[in-house]
C-alpha cells in the first residue's frame, strides 16, 4: 500500500536532497575556481570529519562512556596504522567487551 501524500512527500524529500548533491558538479564543471577557494575546498574534508565526529560521538548512547571508549579505541587503532575496517571492527569489539562487563 502506498498513500499518495506520503509518496509525494518522499519524492519532494528526494528532490531537495539530490539538488545540493548534484549542483556543484554542474555549476563548477570545467571551471577553474580562484586559488583561495580551491584551497578552502581541499580543506573541507578534514574539517568536515572533525565536525562529524564531535560532539555527536558522545551521544551515541545515553552512557557517554560508550562514545569516549569507542572513539578512544578507534583513535589508538588508527594511530597504530590499522586500516579502516580493522579500526571499525576493533572499536565494536572493545565496546562489546565493555557492555559485557558494565
Amino acid at each position, binding site marked *: 500500500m*502506498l*498513500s499518495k501524500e506520503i*509518496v509525494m*512527500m*518522499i519524492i*519532494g*524529500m528526494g528532490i*531537495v*536532497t*539530490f539538488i*545540493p*548533491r*548534484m549542483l*556543484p*558538479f*554542474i555549476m*563548477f*564543471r570545467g571551471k577553474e575556481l580562484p586559488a*583561495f577557494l580551491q*584551497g*578552502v*575546498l*581541499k*580543506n*573541507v*574534508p*578534514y*574539517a*568536515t*570529519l*572533525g*565536525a*562529524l*565526529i564531535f*560532539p555527536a*560521538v558522545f551521544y*551515541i*548512547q545515553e552512557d557517554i562512556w*560508550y562514545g569516549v571508549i*569507542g*572513539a578512544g*579505541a*578507534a*583513535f589508538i587503532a*588508527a594511530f597504530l*596504522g*590499522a*586500516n*579502516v*575496517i580493522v*579500526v*571499525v*571492527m576493533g572499536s*565494536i*569489539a572493545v*565496546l*562489546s567487551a*565493555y*557492555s*559485557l562487563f558494565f
Partner: protein
Amino acid sequence: MTIDQGTRFKKGCQAGISIAIGYVPIALTFGLIAKTTGLSLGETVMMSMIVFAGASQYMSLSLLALGTGAFEIVLTTFIVNIRHFLMSASLNEKVEPDRTINRVIYSFGITDETFSVAAIQPGKLTTGFMFGLNLTAYLSWVIGSGVGFAIGAGLPQTLQQSMSIALYAMFIGLLVPSMKKSVKVVFLAALAACFNIIFTMTNFLSSGWAIVVATLLSAVLVEWVEGIKKKGQVSNVE
C-alpha cells in the same frame, strides 16, 4: 565498461564495506521505526531508495509521528541536507574528467560517509571508484531498511549498542592517518570540532547548519592563516 574501470569499481566496493557495516544497524532500525510510525513496506523502501539520507529520514519519521505536514518535512529535509553542497563542491575538484551524466548519477550517492571515504583517497577519483563506493553504501542502506521493516526488529540490543560506534570509528580511521602526516589537518579537524561543539551546546544553530558553518569557518580560517604565513615568508626573502 573497460577492464580498468572494472577494477576501480571493485576497489570502490571494497572501500564501501566499512560504510555498509555502519549503515546496516542504522538501516534496520530505520525500517523498524518506519513500521511503528505507520508507513508501509513499500513506502519505507521507497524512501530509502529515493532520499538515501539517514538523518533526514529519521527526522521525517519523528515529524510524521507528530503530525507535521508534508511541506514542512520536505523543507526540513532540505535544510538538513544542504551540507552536501559543500561536500560535492569539494569532490568536484578531485574527480577525473568525465561526462556530466556520470557525475550527476554518482552525485546521488554522496552522503557524509561516502564523501569522507572518497575525499581521503589519494590522487584523482575515478568514475568507477565512485560508482562502486556509492552503490555498496546505497544497497546496504536500502536492503537494510527493507529487512528491518520485514523482520520488525533490529540487532540484539548489546550488539546494536556496540555497533553504534561504527560510523564514528570509520571517520576516526579516515582522519587519523592524515593527521599524522600534516599538522594542518590536525588544526582543520580540531577547529571544526570546537566550532561544532560550541554551536551545538549553545543551540545557536540546528545540527544541519552547525556542521556546514563549523566546516566552512575552519576551512577558511586555516587557509587564510596559511596564506598570511606564506606571504610573510615571501616578504622575508625579499
